[in-house]
């Protein structure tokens, strides 16, 4: 990922910042310039809690260039009712299941070569309360 693009994405990548429609209150991630629900144009920054559950998951055995695998990916349903696509981390692949509570953490996404910058962003791990209980 090139630097200007990374810079542009730091708010959603670091803080899971999306948008909330000032008209109808619908929340969106990724950020949208207008409301996908009511077509309203007045949007404000909305930071998601990062808590959710696994809706579906898969294991990437052959990662794309710039990534090293294998790793798990998932569709995560956030408690605010929005779905996010992300990697899972800190979890044994065999332990992942649909419905599993997860929480957002900040992790390394990509490295721009051995001397370049590192792209950080959100991943999801099993919710801490869940892990302590098990």
């Amino acid at each position, binding site marked *: *990922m090139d630097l200007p*693009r990374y810079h542009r*994405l730091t708010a*959603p990548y670091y803080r899971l910042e999306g948008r909330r429609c000032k008209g109808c209150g619908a929340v969106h991630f*990724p950020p949208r310039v207008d409301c*996908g629900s009511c077509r309203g144009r007045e949007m404000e920054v909305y930071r998601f809690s990062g808590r959710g559950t696994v*809706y*579906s*998951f*898969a*294991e*990437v*055995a*052959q*990662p*794309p*260039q*710039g*990534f090293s*695998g294998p*790793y798990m*990916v*998932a*569709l995560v349903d956030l408690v605010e009712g*929005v*779905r*996010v*696509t*992300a*990697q899972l981390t800190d979890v044994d*692949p065999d332990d992942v299941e*649909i419905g599993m509570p997860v929480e957002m953490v900040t992790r390394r*996404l*990509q490295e721009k070569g051995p001397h370049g910058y590192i*792209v950080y*962003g959100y991943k999801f791990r099993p919710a801490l309360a869940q892990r302590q209980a098990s």
Partner: protein
Amino acid sequence: MRDVFIVGAGQTPVGEHWGLGLRELGAAAIRAALDDAGIESVDALFAGNMLGGAVNGQENLGALLADAAGLLPAEACKVEAACASGGAAVRMAALSVAAGVHDVAVAVGVEKMTDAVSDQITVGLATASDGDYEASHGLSFIALSALLMRRYMHETGASREDFAPFAVNAHRNAAANVNAMFRAPISGEDFARSPQVAAPIGVLDAAPVCDGAAAVVICSREALLPAHRAVRIAAAAAATDTIGLAGRADLLTLGAARRSAEKAFAASGLAPQDCDLFEAHDAFTIITALSLEACGFVPRGEALKRAAHGCFARGGCIPLSTCGGLKARGHPVGASGAYQIVEAAAQLRGEAGTNQVPGARVALTQSIGGHGSIAVTHVLEA
């Protein structure tokens, strides 16, 4: 809008063409289609292609292929709609003739994938997904399909092995297709044993990386010649859905596929039960199942049960991937939509040989890009 007809069809074999590049592949298919139509010049060329820029470092395929195929100075441009590029190019050619802008147009789908190594192709294919919120997070194209498949299995109670009939059928049909990449049949046991590339997706769920080109010549009724064995394009329709999987209103309903099929059926006055065969976008077995359900051939969640009963084999209720499909004929991504049209036209002309669906009069083709973010559906009529 005027009626439009396919009057010529051509293709290269699908495979690893180490000696051929985009220009040779594209020109070979175009020339074969022009020869089939007995036509030497066209008003316009539409070139369906996905990876020319990302993988081959070659854009401006309109000019490249018009030049290579000897069609200068015809109007020409590239049409890109991810894995649906070939289908979109055929639709653009059909639209231009239907609108009366052109009398004769050629659509080609062409892809050259084997110049790049596998992790570069993985990056190239991921450009069809949401770059900021999927690909940049390490989601490969296969992984996104695997997310669909895992959820489908969860909701229907299906196992991985239940997807086998789609792959077995495709390979069986490819055996008689001289242009197919994989002509050896596979068994359900082969399917079950195949290694997983992005669990739950295994090697035999997925279409191969390969090269190829297919083309059709499209003309108006006024431009038809007595020698033409014309196939009418009864409808061509396209629709879109969210670029990212996470944004879909219902993950397991391919909204663009459903909408484009509904539009195509409405425009043609036909229905799923009128179709004699279906060339589906079987890039992954899960996409085949979702496409069948989106087009209304089977109710939601029923595709695997029908497949288990042989519904989609030759002689079944709706023969599928009759020349091997993307799975076994091969999936040179931006070309596959054009291969579907070429193969469906062969069926409707009665030229499909061992794979002929007896008495085929109506064929549906559906080309899907970006896991259903874009879909192009054609109804062809003999």
